[in-house]
């Protein structure tokens, strides 16, 4: 029997060393099985080693599900990161499974050595032209391999997106709902804080929980929505965006739920000090002068004071306070405020500083009063990364937003105008895009495609287009749901 591998996939945490060892040994075993017969010592040694690792994991978790979703490998609900070498090995197995229509396997607790070897050879030697997941499943039954359950890709055609359309729509709707609810709640919290200095901590935590749950479900739709910078008052959207970016980074780093919640909480309140600055200054359309800057540079300190005055001291408050204070301080201690003691910057401050810089530049609403195209922001940030940002974290951030962050407007070599909808982390130059028009004019029906798909080989990104320059309202494109 083939089960659906997509029903409740959640990517919450990064795999630990056990899962990493497990998947590396598992994939190696497939590759070895292609080259050697089952009695060869090379295979036997690897098989025995893998079986030990499997048993250890199975004893702990009961069964071990391995799923491949959008090219990402999950062991249980943990996402496996591969280094260069590992990725090559993994790609081989992922591709061959995909061609067979296998979306994953569940290795049951009752799987023994003999069943394992039979299964490995069954899949490794399967002829992809003549076989498919149905045939493999049938053979599993015939060979008495009861310890393995296949997970299918359902009726997936290579050129089609992985998820069925209704599931995608559902996810998009949920992401939108979460995103706009978050903006609304942030608005409530900050407005209340501005009026009475009271901070609704519980409400803020609820927002963060929802965002984490949504990101765990699918990060791409929320990341796409961060491009809606004009939706509401800048501060609220900006705070929500920073929360989304930071949480995505936190998830990639493998932070546990509690620390993720703290990271999101800190992100929401990173600019809290601004509620104590004059509204005219925050909304000032012109470039800031020296006097404006003197005031603006006080917001980190005001943020700390507001947090400490109004919140009970705990990890949430302390983390929010340090982020509020440090998020404009660069790795080389330039920026503001100037520090009396130059202690290493806090991890959350570094993460939020990167997200904040990116979003602020992209919005052109504060500091630099002009939106800067995404590629230019990344280029600038990369140029400065060795001294201004934590190089590794910036690398991680670029991995998330991609060369062409969601919301970027691009012109394709096919002379089509498209909006980037999702980063393709395995092939960053070829993200998923929504084609919205061509030389003849805007399309009546938008086309969602994956530039990495071989069918779209003739389409490449030619250049990034500045939507402001051409009066293109990217918000309308993102919100249209086909």
């Amino acid at each position, binding site marked *: 029997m083939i089960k659906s591998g997509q029903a409740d996939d959640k990517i919450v945490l990064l795999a630990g060393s056990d899962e990493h060892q497990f998947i590396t040994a598992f994939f190696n075993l497939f590759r070895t099985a292609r080259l050697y017969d089952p009695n060869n010592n090379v295979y036997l040694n690897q098989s025995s080693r893998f079986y030990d690792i499997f048993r250890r994991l199975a004893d702990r978790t009961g069964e071990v599900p391995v799923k491949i979703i959008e090219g990402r490998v999950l062991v249980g609900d943990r996402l496996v990161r591969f280094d260069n070498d590992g990725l090559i090995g993994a790609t081989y197995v992922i591709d061959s499974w995909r061609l067979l229509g296998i979306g994953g396997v569940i290795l049951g607790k009752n799987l023994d050595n003999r069943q394992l070897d039979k299964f490995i050879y069954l899949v490794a030697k399967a002829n992809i032209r003549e076989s498919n997941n149905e045939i493999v499943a049938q053979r599993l039954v015939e060979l008495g391999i009861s310890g393995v359950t296949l997970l299918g890709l359902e009726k997936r055609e290579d050129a089609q997106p992985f998820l069925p359309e209704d599931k995608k729509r559902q996810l998009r709707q949920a992401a939108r709902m979460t995103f706009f609810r978050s903006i609304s709640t942030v608005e409530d919290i900050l407005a209340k804080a501005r009026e009475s200095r009271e901070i609704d901590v519980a409400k803020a*935590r609820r927002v963060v929980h929802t965002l984490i749950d949504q990101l765990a479900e699918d990060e791409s739709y929320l990341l796409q929505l961060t491009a809606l910078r004009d939706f509401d008052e800048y501060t609220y959207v900006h705070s929500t965006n920073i929360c989304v970016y930071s949480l995505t980074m936190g998830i990639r780093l493998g932070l546990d739920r509690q620390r993720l919640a703290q990271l999101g909480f800190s992100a929401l309140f990173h600019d809290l000090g601004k509620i104590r600055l004059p509204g005219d200054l925050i909304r000032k359309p012109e470039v800031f002068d020296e006097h404006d800057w003197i005031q603006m540079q006080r917001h980190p300190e005001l943020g700390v004071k507001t947090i400490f005055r109004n919140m009970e*001291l705990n990890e949430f408050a302390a983390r929010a306070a340090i982020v509020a204070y440090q998020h404009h301080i660069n790795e080389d201690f330039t920026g503001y405020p100037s520090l009396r003691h130059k202690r290493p910057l806090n991890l959350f401050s570094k993460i939020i500083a990167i997200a904040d810089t990116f979003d602020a530049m992209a919005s052109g609403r504060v500091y630099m009063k002009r939106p800067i195209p995404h590629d230019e922001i990344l280029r600038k940030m990369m140029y400065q990364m060795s001294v201004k940002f934590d190089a590794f974290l910036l690398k991680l951030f670029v991995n998330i937003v991609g060369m062409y962050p969601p919301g970027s407007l691009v012109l394709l070599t096919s002379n089509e105008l498209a909006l980037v909808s999702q980063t393709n982390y395995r092939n960053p130059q070829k993200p998923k895009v929504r084609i919205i028009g061509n030389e003849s004019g805007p399309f009546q029906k938008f086309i969602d495609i994956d530039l990495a798909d071989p069918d779209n080989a003739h389409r490449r990104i030619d250049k990034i287009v500045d939507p402001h320059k051409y009066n293109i309202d990217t918000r309308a494109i993102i919100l249209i749901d086909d």
Partner: protein
Amino acid sequence: MAETSDKTKHEITQILGEFIRVIKITAMYPEDNPLPRKLRDSFTDRFVDLVQEAAPLLLEIRPNEIIYQQEVVYADKSPEDALAGLLYKAGLNGITLRQDFNLEDCQKFFSLLKSYINKEPGAGDLIALFWEADLPGLTYHTVDDALLDEYDAEFLSRSGDPVRESFIKGADDSSKLEYAAIFDADDAAALPSQSDLFEDTLAESKMGLAPGTPRKQKAPVIDTARIVSEIFNLEKSDMARVDEIIQEDALFDPYQTAAELLEEILWQPRDFADFNEIVTIIEKLQTEFIKAGKLRAAGRLINLMVEYGAQAGTDRPQWARRLQEAVAVAGGREKLSVLADTLNREKAISPLDLSEYLALFGWESLMVITDLLDDLESQVHREAVCDFLAVHGRDHVDFITRAIYDKRWYVVRNAASILARIGSPKALAALEKLLTHPEPRIRLEIVRRLARKGDLESRRFLTNLVWDGDDLICRTALEAVIEYCLSEGPELLTGIINDDRFAGLKEAYQESIIMAYSRTGGDQAVEYLARLAVAGRFWTTQEQEFLQRVSFRALAVNKTEAAEKELAGLARSWKRKVRNMAQAALRHRENHRQEAV
């Protein structure tokens, strides 16, 4: 079917009815106590069985009742037994328990509720606790969710239903021309120029984002291919860095961080109002640090204020006064009472941390610190406070002396202990008032404390306690005096022997004193012992006989020539008994001499 359903509802009612009671009972005992654990286990077993039978179990929570399948299955009984009210106030309006809600989840669920009800630190938000626990079989619905549902409708009307062409702003011909220009390969305006991008040089310099880049100079263009290869491949070293980052972050200490931040912002203010706000925040956090038992961090804040106050002293007297005030408040009764509560709750707080913390305050706090002794439950902490006062109260004995008039014996004992440790003439004068205190534990504390001190004044004071009616006190005092005299001379022993009350002491104690006197008193002691040895020329009392026996044993250990001569003389006595005892003493001396050789 209806019967099963009724049975299920009945069981739900039963279990919900017992919930608060079981939690309260288990909360009263330590986790490892078998009795409440058994109660909890049998309760959670029943709960899980119920969920398995009725899953999915949807419970609607209302302000005073819980609804299952549109029927009230639980209603709050009293303010103390109000599960519905408790959950509703926490922000929940529904709970769903599914088939996969297993025993482990149930125990976790139970323990979260317990922490919440008990108001344990960090457990003030039940929904956050549920979310963090991530129990697979439990979903919950919040009051906030319900409110936001209304917002969704509003959002949908705001976002509208955009028309396909509406992404081009404006519908005039110029907009269409702008759109067409996108596809014009020669349109140099397609990308903004570098100078446009970085025109706000003031912003860049304030944000520190232009390291040595001359104005208007382009940021170097990084080759896309290089970014792709360098950025998108996480290398092994990157993965190791992730682990390192996570481990480093796990050491995050909110108290240390808060202290460091306050240290930074204290130096930032521009006017007194601003400064005053910061000091107020420091005062607030200082209390929170104490409540959390973080005495080192709390002490750091005091030091910070003292240090800043010293610097501000001459230039900004108003600021310095504000800080002095804050430090005085920190060492005041209210804050130290918070400290006492914390110490009683967290008995593991190190006495060293406590002493170091108390040492931050001036003599003004000594009186309050002395009073602190009344409230402390842990002996370790009381000892630490006594040690502290013994060192820091030396010049302010009056504050401590006040406590010896307290009605509570243990308060008096603590004061006595401190005074004894100080041991100054003033302290000893105060202690004299306690020599006749009816509570023996106070006198015992004095004798024990003074016995640990090696100075003459303390030992002299101890001679007063040799006459105490309590045997333990008497013996302890005596041992201390003898120990002192064996090394420092017989003066104190002479006083005791010459005291009229000497004969009233136990014989064993008299003997110890005489033996010690003989060892230390030299020729002077021989003279005294010789008198005892021949006492009662014709008949002797029992007491004289005792002293006579002791005197010969004492002469045997007296190393002077006089003792030797005296014994030799007595060995020739016409009294056989005296002669025998003297000869035995001489033999003892001889044996001893030979052993020494």
